[in-house]
């Protein structure tokens, strides 16, 4: 892992792991907000509490979740809002991620809908908030709590995962339970989930009112000289693709066939096309797409290239989804969120 910070931990996945369709648990990126992260959980006493605007509050053990609810599995990308932040110019403060604050995993657990149905949500519910075991270091620091609209929470896809790639979640990835919000940025994927609260009014706290907001305009973009007046909470992924080969330091030779490969994903409409360029965007050709692993999974693309002459080449890849959303040519916002500028990989053929 690439080590960004230790307390609280932020760990980035090296790109070569993305040559696998499912990111290994031990290499999956880690990002916590508050110093007090859980380092020990006793499953005999741990309970998921469901309360608020419901008729039947619940306290569920992990065994209850496993034994009393129908399990569902989904392969879904989780990506940090600030993935690739270090590429924004001018630079912005925050976790200085490159492209590795993202991963793709098979999540198994129960739908939030089935939990809320058991709890019997009262009429007039508006939002559902999700809190985890992590705790602020000072009383003045807001606890990290996120919320979804009641309709989103009950869409049958938002789920509580007790397994990640068929294993228990690593502690640093949210053991024993993690909220999975397919197609939405990682800030909503609350780790060590312990409390679900149904609210008859809109949820409000620092982490949604002030933090994790994007300019209201297209693709969360604004100008450093003219910051957007209106912002909205960050939400679903935009479209992006990431090269996994060749490496920039790989030696290529004239006449030697070279396989280019990468991953592409969006918020769930589905990747329909990836084009690659080996001449800095002057010409483009369609890449081959691997079989779709699910609409929230990333999709692998491949393209063959035989460089004819020695020299410097700029490789680029551009993904498009089924509703025509594609990648940015340029992008900036004050928080360094939602980077999806078409990637450039410079290689030398010699």
């Amino acid at each position, binding site marked *: 892992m690439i*080590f960004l910070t*230790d307390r609280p931990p932020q760990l980035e996945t090296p790109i070569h792991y993305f040559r696998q369709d499912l990111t290994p648990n031990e290499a999956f990126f880690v990002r916590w907000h508050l110093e007090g992260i859980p380092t020990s959980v006793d499953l005999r006493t741990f309970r998921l509490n469901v309360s608020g605007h419901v008729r039947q509050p619940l306290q569920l053990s992990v*065994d209850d979740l496993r034994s009393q609810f129908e399990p569902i599995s989904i392969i879904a990308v989780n990506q940090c809002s600030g993935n690739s932040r270090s590429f924004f110019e001018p630079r*912005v*403060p925050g976790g200085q991620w490159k492209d590795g604050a993202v991963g793709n995993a098979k999540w198994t657990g129960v739908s939030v809908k089935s939990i809320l149905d058991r709890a019997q949500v009262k009429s007039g519910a508006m939002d559902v908030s999700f809190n985890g075991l992590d705790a602020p270091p000072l009383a*003045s620091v807001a606890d990290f709590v996120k919320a979804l609209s009641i309709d989103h929470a009950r869409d049958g896809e938002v789920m509580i995962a007790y397994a990640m790639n068929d294993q228990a979640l*690593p502690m640093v990835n949210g053991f024993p339970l993690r909220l999975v919000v397919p197609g939405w940025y990682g800030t909503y994927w609350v780790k060590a989930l312990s409390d679900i609260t149904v609210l008859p009014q809109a949820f409000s706290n620092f982490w949604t009112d002030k933090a994790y907001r994007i300019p209201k305009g297209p693709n969360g973009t604004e100008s450093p000289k003219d910051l957007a007046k209106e912002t909205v909470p960050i939400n679903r992924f935009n479209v992006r693709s990431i090269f996994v080969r060749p490496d920039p330091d790989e030696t290529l030779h004239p006449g030697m066939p070279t396989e280019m490969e990468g991953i592409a994903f969006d918020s769930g409409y589905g990747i329909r096309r990836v084009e690659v360029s080996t001449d800095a965007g002057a010409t483009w050709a369609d890449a081959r797409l691997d079989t779709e692993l699910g609409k929230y999974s990333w999709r692998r693309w491949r393209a063959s290239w035989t460089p004819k002459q020695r020299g410097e080449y700029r490789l680029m890849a551009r993904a498009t989804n089924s509703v025509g959303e594609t990648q940015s040519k340029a992008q900036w916002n004050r928080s360094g969120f939602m980077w999806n500028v078409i990637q450039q990989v410079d290689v030398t053929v010699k």
Partner: protein
Amino acid sequence: MRNKTTRAVISIGLAAFFVGCGTVLNNTGESQPETSAPVQSMSGSPNGDSVHSIVLPHDEPLFPPGAGRDEFVTACVVCHSPRYITMQPQFPRSTWLSEVNKMKDVYGAHISDEQAQRITDYLVSINGKADSGQAPKGTYGE
């Protein structure tokens, strides 16, 4: 090198480690320290052992002496690793002041305006650059 580090930790597979060995080349060719992810006990099924625990070792850099260092260590490191400073690029004073004021005004760091200025001076001295006039201010939730 990269695979080896992770495999080694899986095979140990008992506690959490940050192993600061090796480097990894990223997309831009810059060198980054590589570490193994902390991993928890994977002994048996998730229904096996009831108590799951990890240890998170700290790996915090030493900071050079300088005006404001004491305030920095006292007020900032109580809530987060100084790596939150060292991982940033060089920012102009206005950006660092904005970050320090965010800690004070938004997160409630126990510092006075005067201490905030001295901490900012220190941050600029160790990881700053001249003001460009268009420095991005910090925001929340990074």
